[in-house]
């Protein structure tokens, strides 16, 4: 079932002069199994929007429908929502607290009221899907490397078996290898488990490479909504918002300006390489 966001507004501060709208009249439909990238500079409302989707923040006005139900209905169970919409915060490794990796991953499913056996089964599955080697299951999470910690934290959310996974800059502070691993893992969750993924990111390259659809946020509003090609085609507008297109798009635009016949809207290195090879073959 899709997620439908209907005229969502969230303001904070006192009503009147101090009032600030972190989200301003947002309407949006996210179909099942889509990989959505959300970009916007700091303070554009990305994280605020994400926190609404699993009920951590309650909108000032507007509605969110999940599985056809309004999550602001009085008898709607937020706990159920949180089991279906997994939210991975920025630097999720900061939430680890248990004595060993395995118990930490069990925390989520246990909170859902599952039996010990069920919770452990889910924890095993989650740890396997993030590719943690088994010999680390019973080590303290604080002894792991940065990338491993992050994978444990993501497993902690996956163990709740959500249908929708929201990640707030999951690659911040990781080295290129760790970054590719995490993004590859996220992509495989979409393709293999048909999960809906929402990825907040500052890296245009990452977004261009992996997502099906990009939402551009600025000052609490959605300014653009489309495929990476459509969005990055408007890179001049993005620059005005303090964002940019992937570097490779600039290279292709540069070639275009110099009079080479290439597709200026390439967003990934692979696409651009193909285009340039075509150019060479044509002579």
């Amino acid at each position, binding site marked *: 079932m899709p997620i439908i966001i209907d005229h969502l507004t969230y303001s904070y501060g006192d009503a009147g002069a101090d009032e600030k709208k972190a989200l301003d009249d947002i309407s949006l439909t996210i179909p099942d199994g889509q990989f959505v990238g959300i970009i916007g500079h700091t303070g554009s409302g990305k994280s605020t929007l994400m926190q609404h989707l699993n009920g951590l*923040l*309650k909108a000032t006005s507007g509605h969110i429908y999940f599985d056809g139900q309004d999550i602001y209905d009085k008898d709607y169970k937020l706990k159920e929502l949180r089991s279906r919409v997994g939210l991975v*915060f920025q630097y999720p490794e*900061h939430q680890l*607290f248990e004595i060993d990796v395995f118990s930490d991953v069990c*925390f989520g499913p246990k*909170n859902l009221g599952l039996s010990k056996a069920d919770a452990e089964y889910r924890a095993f599955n989650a740890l396997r899907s993030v590719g943690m080697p088994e010999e680390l299951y019973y080590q303290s999470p604080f002894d792991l490397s940065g990338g491993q910690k992050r994978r444990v934290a993501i497993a902690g959310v996956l163990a*709740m078996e959500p249908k929708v996974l929201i990640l707030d800059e999951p690659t911040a502070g990781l080295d290129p290898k760790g970054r590719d691993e995490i993004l590859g893992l996220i992509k495989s969750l979409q393709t293999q488990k048909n999960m809906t993924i929402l990825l907040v990111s500052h890296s245009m390259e990452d977004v261009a490479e992996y997502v099906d659809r990009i939402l551009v946020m600025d000052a609490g509003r959605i300014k653009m909504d489309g495929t990476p090609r459509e969005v990055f085609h408007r890179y001049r507008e993005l620059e005005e918002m303090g964002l940019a297109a992937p570097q490779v798009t600039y290279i292709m635009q540069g070639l275009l300006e110099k009079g080479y016949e290439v597709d200026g809207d390439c967003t990934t290195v692979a696409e651009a390489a193909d285009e340039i090879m075509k150019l060479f073959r044509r002579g």
Partner: protein
Amino acid sequence: MGRRDMLRDITLGQYYQTESVIHKLDPRVKLAGTLIYVITIFFYKNFLGYALAILFLAFVIRLSHVPFRFMVKGMKAILFLLMVTVLYNLFLTPGTPVFTLGKLHITKEGTGIAVSMALRLSLLVIGSSLLTLTTTPNNLTDGMEKGLRFLKIFKVPVHEIAMMMSIALRFIPILLEETDKIMKAQMARGADFESGNLIVRAKAMVPLLVPLFVSAFRRASDLAMAMEARCYRGGEGRTKMKPLKYHGRDYLAYLLLLFFMVFSIWAGRLKLPMLTI
């Protein structure tokens, strides 16, 4: 969400940025002034003293350009304490009863004490939050360091204490934000901080407290490293970029404070039949 608002409501130790004479005063004056004010209000024996103290505070608040609602925010935190104190004194002070409710008596003496206690507590909180609202934490500890320098004779590590205090103050908002973040992250994993009895709730705090301590230690060691990288080695021979210096307005403020203390204590201890507590 209620908890988040609660965290935001703690004004004690929060600076309100604006231009005013009070903001510009030397922190030593403000520290001494707060101390004098707090001590003075314990000397009153009649309501005239309190009236003067309220007037004086209103005057200073007016000068400080800090909106009054910021002071009231601090009051919210002690509302419960205030109510208990008032009710306790109102009903349990022996004396001439003026009103009886079953077994409970409200006495004339009790009313006086209850009102004066409530006034004292409120003035205390508002007075001290005025200090932190108009002085940056850095200035405050600078003032403390310089004002208490004489304690060095007794081998009190004044500089180190002041440095620790300023770091602690600096970390309050950071840790509050961190608490909020971790709390949300655990709630997203189904943690429940609000239901259950006391023991259940205390247990529910573990997933919040462990990461919070870990992060506090991490931040502390990062900070220590950064300080050492800049050759920090304690107060010995350390100079200030902006040394504290008294100006004309500071001497005037001392004079006013002294006058307020003497005059209001004198007035507050007059034997006034109508206004005596």
